Every structure is written in structure tokens, then in C-alpha cells.
């Protein structure tokens, strides 16, 4: 029998050690913990440790650990009751500037964490929690964008002294009529220069001009609407105080929201479903808001609203200068004088109109109207919950216009806190397109725990049955196969932990199934060895032939299974992806363990024997 190449043995040892190392974090378990972040997303203050300690000391809670960990502060506890009490205490003492969330922290020792080792993340079906898939109604955003041009284009033409004879909206197209083809051509040229985002169509033999949004403009609008929603949803989810929330874009117009360990879906849905928008409007100074509020008679062309602070009546002109859809960014900053301010960025559409408006309105006041649809749950006399939609319309800011501006401007004269909340409200109001929940999956904690238990039991039983069979059927070689199988399990766990793929129920099913399939490689090899022995080949050679000949077959067979799992991964949804991942990882690692691993063992045990009368494989 030829000696086994040293490098293969070394490789096997190295892989085994690495696998064990990176699978190790999964055995330590988790502590109940409280996670703290700043609401603004700013870094934590330097003296934060002292603040936390003080808050806990007043309640007499002794944490088992308290330190910064990957951007947030983690306080660990020995018992879950302490965790709840501490979270309440921290919320009270730290105030609104911080998000205090309940969570779990891995007990993995520092030296392992430094090596990048971490435990497997569990899918929502194992740890419990809610999963929402939200669809952004981009049609709405697109329609709104398209409709603006039916007023914008005529206004523009009037300014350019180009006469049109008619205008109308046909779906998402704006159609303009002209007296003759020459005027139309002039209009087409002017519009094309000013509005590059429009596709203009001037059919021969007619005097109409049709304007539609270009493909790239539509894509930009959709992207923008989804991005705005994403930001707003993140802000709202942060208010919930959940550890490790996931808010992520999926595909063109969908957003995934995953909140581990959350069960009260009602509150989450209310929060996610709230729609807000805002409008920049001119304040009407000719009429009296007080008398309008008293009499209920509003001057023509205006509407009556109240301010958020103080509930003061204010008359606003109907014309909207810029809406939430035009808002690109709003952030609390300080102006050149060092006083708090909110800086606002508008898109080109909004900027253009803001410029036109401010040009003629310097010194006049402008207001921001915030509209939000709030769903409220009230209980009637019989205790049956009633959900009511309520429209909230409030003026969140009134400021006088100090100069002519367009794209970028600042609102000043605020306190730092006011600036902060105005910026947040502006961002929230930028939620341009409505969202709809198109998928929900909630798993209660008890079901999650059951799923873990059942998955673990099934895996253990599967492993036991296969091992028993292999040991009885193939004797010593069966033990080699079992060793290879165990190593393979360790490697699968290690790779899953390393790549951070979440383990799901179908994922566990994949691991279990894969144990049955993984031994196939060994079966193939061992049957081959038996066959060689039957044909009178010497034991050492039989082992060699068995492994060599089976290699390609196993590789071929594995490739086809991988094709199936690749399709599943590409097109499967959620937990099923977990199945594809575990199965694929298992197949790749088993190709190594079943062939290199079990062979090295066979070599180790039988390689040095000069004479072998029989192999313990029967």
C-alpha cells in the first residue's frame, strides 16, 4: 500500500481544527442581555459605562457584564428577571435619547470572538419573531410624479410665451395641443431643454405634443420612493426597541422587516402602516385665521389647520410648493451662527418650484403641513377592540422666508431639541408612497423552542440510526465513515456560523437529509473495495482502487445535487433558502470528509500493515 501523501493528512488535521474552532461558539449558549443604542445613531458618550452603572445601582441590579460591543452597549445578566428590571430602569434613567432593547448575547469568550468566530444565527422560525414583507405602492408615486406635469408644463410655456390651445392628462401622459406645428416644435425644444426627464412625442400630421416620463426617470422615482420608505421604516422600527431588527430592501419595490422575539404584531403593524406625508405651503396672511376657526368659514383658496405646538389656527394657501415626495434629505445641524437648524434638500422638481415661490415671497411666512394616518385601537363597552383610522393634519413649522432659495435651505430659530424632532418629522413625512403588508410570518417563542428541540432530536436520531447501520454493516470501515460524518457535521456548523447564514427549520431538515446522503460516498467506496477484494485484489490496493475510482462518480453525483440546490437558493424564499444553503454546504464538505477524511483514517490504521489477510469491511 502506498503511503498516504503527507500534505493531505496535514490538510485534514488543519481543516478539522479550524472547523472545531469556528463551530465552538455554538456550545457556549447565551445570556439575557439589554442592548443600548443612541436614537440618533450617534456614537455613545465616553462616560456611558458610568451612566449605566449608576442606573443599575439605584435599582440594586448586578449585571454580569457591561461593555460596548459592535456599535452598541451590551449589559449582560445572569437571570431573565434581572434583564427585564434593568431594561425598565435604564429606559427611565437614560431617557428618550437612547433605544433600550431586550436581547440575547452570546457567551463566546473574547479570544474566539477576536478570531471572527461567532455562533450560528437562528432564523425567525427557530427563535420566534415576526417577519413582514412590505410592498411599496410605486404606481402611486409614479402617477403622482406624472400628474405634476399637467400643471407644470403649461406654466412653463406661459413663461416662455409659447401659446398652447389645450392640455389634458391621459393616464400617465400629459398631452398639449398647439395651433400649428411650428409652435409645437418651439414648445418641444423648450421643454426638452428644461425637462430632460421627459420623453416627448410629436406625431406627424397632428399638432399635439405628448410628454411621458423616461424609463430612467421612472426607475429613479421608484428607487427614491423605496429608499424613503426604507429610512422611515428604520426610524419607526428603532422606536420599538428590538434587538437586531432587520429592515432591508428586497427586489425592486419590497422591504423586508424582521423583528426577532417580537410577538405583539398589532403594535408593529400599526407603526409600519402609519402613512405620513408633508407639504410646504404658503401662509395666507390676508384672511384672519382666528375668525375662520370661530365661524368655520374659510376664505376661498385657503384651508384651515392648527399648529402641532399650541394648537394655533393658521390659514394656508391651497397650492402645494413642495411635497414629501420632493424631499431628498432633512437633517438637524447648526447654522453659521452656531444656532440649531434643520437643513433640507429638495429634488430638482421641488427645488424649481421652491425657487419660483421664494423669488416673489421674500419676507413672507411659509409653513410645513404634516399629514399622518394613524390607526388607533380603542375598546368598546364589551371589551371588543375597535380599530379606527384617524387623519392627523398638523403644522409642524412656520418660518419666514429670508431669501430666494431652491434645492437647499435651512430652517433656523429652533432649539436643539426642536431641530431634532423637526428633522425626524420631515424625514417621516417624506414617506412618499404608501406601503402594504403582502406577507407576514409570525412565530411564537414556544413554537420556536419546539422547532429547535424537534430539529435537534431528529438530527440526533438520524445520526444514531445511520451510525448504527454503518457500524454493523461495514465494521471498522463503518466507524471511519461515522468519523467522517461527524467531522462533516462540525464543518457544516462551522461554515454556517462563519458565513452568518441563518439556520431555519428547513435548514435543519437539510442537515438531517444530508447525513443520509453524505454516507453514500463512503458506501460507494466501500462497495467498490469489497468488489475489488472479491476479484482477488490485495487489500491495500483494493483500498486505493476503491477511493480512486469512486472519486469522479461522487463528484458527478454531487454536482447534480448542487444544481438543484442552486436553483432553490436563487428562486426559493425565506426559510427554504436555508435548506438550500445547508444542503449545499453539506455536499461540498462531505466531498472532502468522505474521501480525504475517511481515507486518511483507513491509511492510518491499515497503511503500515505489511500483510493483510482480510479487511474488516465485511
Amino acid at each position, binding site marked *: 500500500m502506498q503511503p498516504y501523501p503527507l500534505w493531505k493528512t496535514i490538510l485534514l488535521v488543519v481543516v478539522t481544527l479550524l472547523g472545531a474552532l469556528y463551530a465552538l461558539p455554538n456550545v457556549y449558549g447565551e445570556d439575557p442581555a439589554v442592548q443600548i443604542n443612541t436614537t440618533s445613531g450617534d456614537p455613545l458618550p465616553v462616560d456611558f459605562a458610568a451612566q449605566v452603572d449608576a442606573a443599575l445601582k439605584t435599582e440594586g441590579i448586578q449585571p454580569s457584564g457591561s461593555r460596548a460591543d459592535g456599535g452598541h452597549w451590551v449589559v449582560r445578566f445572569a437571570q431573565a428577571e434581572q434583564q427585564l428590571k434593568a431594561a425598565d430602569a435604564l429606559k427611565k434613567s437614560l431617557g428618550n435619547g437612547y433605544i433600550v432593547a431586550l436581547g440575547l448575547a452570546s457567551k463566546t469568550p473574547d479570544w474566539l470572538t477576536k478570531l471572527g468566530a461567532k455562533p450560528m444565527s437562528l432564523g425567525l422560525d427557530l427563535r420566534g419573531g415576526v417577519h413582514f414583507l412590505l410592498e411599496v405602492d410605486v404606481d402611486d408615486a409614479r402617477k403622482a410624479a406624472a400628474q405634476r406635469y399637467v400643471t407644470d408644463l403649461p406654466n412653463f410655456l406661459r413663461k416662455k410665451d409659447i401659446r398652447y390651445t389645450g392640455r389634458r392628462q391621459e393616464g400617465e401622459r400629459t398631452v398639449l395641443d398647439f395651433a400649428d406645428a411650428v409652435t409645437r416644435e418651439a414648445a418641444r425644444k423648450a421643454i426638452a431643454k428644461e425637462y430632460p426627464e421627459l420623453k416627448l412625442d410629436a406625431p406627424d400630421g397632428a399638432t399635439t405634443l405628448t410628454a411621458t416620463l423616461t424609463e430612467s426617470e421612472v426607475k429613479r422615482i421608484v428607487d427614491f420612493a423605496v429608499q424613503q420608505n426604507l429610512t422611515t421604516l428604520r426610524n419607526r422600527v428603532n422606536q420599538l426597541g428590538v434587538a437586531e431588527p432587520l429592515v432591508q430592501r428586497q427586489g425592486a419595490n419590497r422591504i423586508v422587516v424582521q423583528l426577532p422575539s417580537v410577538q405583539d404584531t398589532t403594535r408593529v403593524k400599526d407603526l409600519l402602516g402609519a402613512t405620513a406625508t408633508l407639504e410646504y405651503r404658503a401662509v395666507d396672511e390676508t384672511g384672519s385665521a382666528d375668525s375662520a376657526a370661530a365661524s368655520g368659514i374659510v376664505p376661498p383658496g385657503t384651508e384651515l389647520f392648527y399648529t402641532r405646538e399650541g394648537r394655533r389656527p393658521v390659514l394656508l394657501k391651497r397650492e402645494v410648493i413642495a411635497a414629501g415626495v420632493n424631499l431628498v434629505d432633512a437633517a438637524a445641524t447648526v447654522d453659521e451662527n452656531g444656532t440649531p437648524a434643520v437643513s433640507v434638500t429638495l429634488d430638482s422638481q421641488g427645488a424649481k418650484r421652491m425657487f419660483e415661490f421664494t423669488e416673489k415671497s421674500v419676507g413672507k411666512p411659509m409653513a410645513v403641513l404634516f399629514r399622518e394616518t394613524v390607526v388607533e385601537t380603542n375598546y368598546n363597552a364589551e371589551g371588543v377592540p375597535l380599530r379606527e383610522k384617524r387623519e392627523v393634519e398638523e403644522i409642524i413649522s412656520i418660518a419666514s422666508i429670508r431669501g430666494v432659495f431652491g434645492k437647499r435651505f435651512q430652517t433656523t430659530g429652533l432649539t436643539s431639541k426642536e431641530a431634532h424632532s423637526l428633522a425626524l418629522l420631515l424625514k417621516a413625512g417624506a414617506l412618499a408612497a404608501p406601503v402594504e403588508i403582502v406577507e407576514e410570518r409570525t412565530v411564537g417563542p414556544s413554537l420556536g423552542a419546539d422547532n429547535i428541540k424537534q430539529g435537534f432530536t431528529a438530527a440526533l436520531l438520524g445520526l444514531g440510526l*445511520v451510525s448504527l447501520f454503518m457500524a454493523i454493516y461495514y465494521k471498522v470501515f463503518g466507524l471511519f465513515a461515522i468519523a467522517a460524518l461527524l467531522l462533516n457535521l462540525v464543518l457544516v456548523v462551522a461554515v454556517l456560523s462563519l458565513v452568518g447564514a441563518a439556520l431555519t427549520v428547513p435548514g435543519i431538515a437539510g442537515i438531517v*437529509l444530508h447525513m443520509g446522503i453524505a454516507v453514500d460516498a463512503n458506501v460507494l467506496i466501500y462497495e467498490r473495495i469489497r468488489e475489488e477484494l472479491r476479484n482477488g485484489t490485495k487489500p491495500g490496493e483494493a483500498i486505493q482502487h476503491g477511493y480512486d475510482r469512486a472519486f469522479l462518480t461522487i463528484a458527478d453525483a454531487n*454536482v447534480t445535487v448542487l444544481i438543484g440546490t442552486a436553483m432553490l437558493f436563487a428562486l426559493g424564499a425565506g426559510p427554504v433558502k436555508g435548506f438550500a444553503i445547508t444542503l449545499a454546504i453539506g455536499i461540498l464538505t462531505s466531498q472532502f470528509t468522505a474521501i480525504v477524511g475517511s481515507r486518511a483514517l483507513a491509511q492510518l490504521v491499515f497503511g503500515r500493515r505489511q500483510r493483510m489477510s482480510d479487511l474488516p469491511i465485511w
Partner: protein
Amino acid sequence: MRIFSGVPNINFMAQRKTGLWVSSFLTVAAILLVAFRGLNFGIDFTGGVLVEVHYPQAVELDSVRADLAHANYEHPVVQYFGTSSDVLIRLPPAEDSNSAKVSTAILDALHASEPNVELRRVEFVGPQVGDELTQDGALALLLAFIGIAFYIMFRFEWKFSVGAVAALIHDAIMVLGFLSLTWIEFDLTTVAAILALIGYSNNETIVIFDRVRENLLSQRRMEILDVVNLSVNQTLLRSVITHLTTLLVLTALLLMGGKSVHSFSSALMVGVIVATYSSIYVSTGLAVVLNVSREDLVPAEKSDADVV
């Protein structure tokens, strides 16, 4: 331990035509079954709302229905899930866009009469998502077939490729027929099971094909039919053992894995049993019926050497 004392010598290919007829008949039967009886699609595909709750004690389904009727849900499907204190409630997809709220309303209705009812699971799938999942599932299956067909064509030969893919389609259809017959729910994990089965079943076929190719090289004077028979016999033991170990883990999964993997494991179990047969009679059998020849598999320069 051994099952046979030596390589068995069963003349599988003698019944190749009968085998193909039987397979064709079964396939047509399964297609008809699926076509007329249909499949018990889960809410992943149909859309709708599913709520699983756990009561602290056994509960009458009628009282649950009454609670729901009180909240104006007239025709929900209410059934026990495992025990008489676990209840599964299903509602078809609603027309109004606000059906995400339905799950909340159902829970509220149940809480009204039993405050200790525990939420186990809520699944809501909107119709648009259901349609997409259906399309993606079908597309994944189709692409897997195509991918495997090309791989076998590349590694072996087109006649084998036809045989292999025919076997895969056969297996998938048989599993669908089984699911239709037993009315086991067909959900996303079932699609995963079928895709895994396709890979698994093809594994069987490849092992046989590989052996056929090897034997064609070493057994120069043997008739092709005998070579195929020999190869099937040589790999038979390995097939039996692999199926056995796979069935063992699937049994573990079926018994211990919980209800959520029930359809997954039962679909795969049937598939594994069917695959044993189809890898011999459908894939290999069809390749033989298509007159697969020595020249198809053995490279030309080797046969030149033969002449010399």
C-alpha cells in the same frame, strides 16, 4: 455484514420494455390524479391567512368557530393540529387590501373568550406573493431539469441525458401523484423536497451511468445490454444501502422533526423509493431503448487503438 454473497446477477434489462410501460402507465395515472383531484396547496401558493394557537386545555372546535363568527369570520377552516388543544385556523385570501389585519382580528376574537390562548404562528401571504412563489417554484424546477440535462450531456451523452431527465420528471410526477392521493399539504418546503429529490435521484442514475462507461472500456467483447445489466447489478448493493440510510434519516425527520417538516419528509420518502426503480428502468432503460452504443460513450481514439 452482507446482503448478497457476491455481485447479484439479475437480468434487469430483459424487462426494460415492460418496465418503461409500467412507468409510463403510472406516470399518466399520477398526472391524471393531479389534474383532476389537484393538490392541497398551502397558503404559500394560494395566499390567505393561517393562525395556529395553543389553548391551555382541550378546546371544542365549535366554540372556536363561534368566537370567529362573532368577529364576522363566517367560513374559516378550523381544525386540530396534532392535539385537541392546538388549533389551526385558515382563511382564504380576502379581496380587500387590508387582509394583513385579519390575523390581528382573529387573535382578538379568540382572546375575548379565552385570555390565555397562546399564539404559535401567524402566516399571511398576499395573493401577489403567492403567485410569485408559485412561479418561482415552477421556474426553479424547470431550470434544475435543464441544468441537469446539460450537465449529463456534457459528462456523458445525449441519450443518457434524455434517460436521466425522463427519470427525474417521472420521480417528480410520482411524488406529486402521491401528494395528491394523500392530500398532504403542498408548501414551499415540499418544493424544496422535490428539488432535493431530483438531485438525489439523479445521483442514482449517474452512479449507474458511470459504471456503464467504465465497463464498456474494460469489457470489450460484452454486448451492450449485458454491460448495462452487469453495471446495474454491480451498483445495486450500493443503491440499496444508500436508500436505506436516506430512508433512516427521513424516518427520523418524520417521527421527530415536527409537523412543519412532515410534507417534506413524506414527499422525499416516497421519492427515494420511486427513485430506486426509476434509476434502473426509466433512465437506464430509456437510454438502452434509444440504442445507446459503445461508440457513444467510449472516445474514438480508444476504438482506433482497438483496431491496432
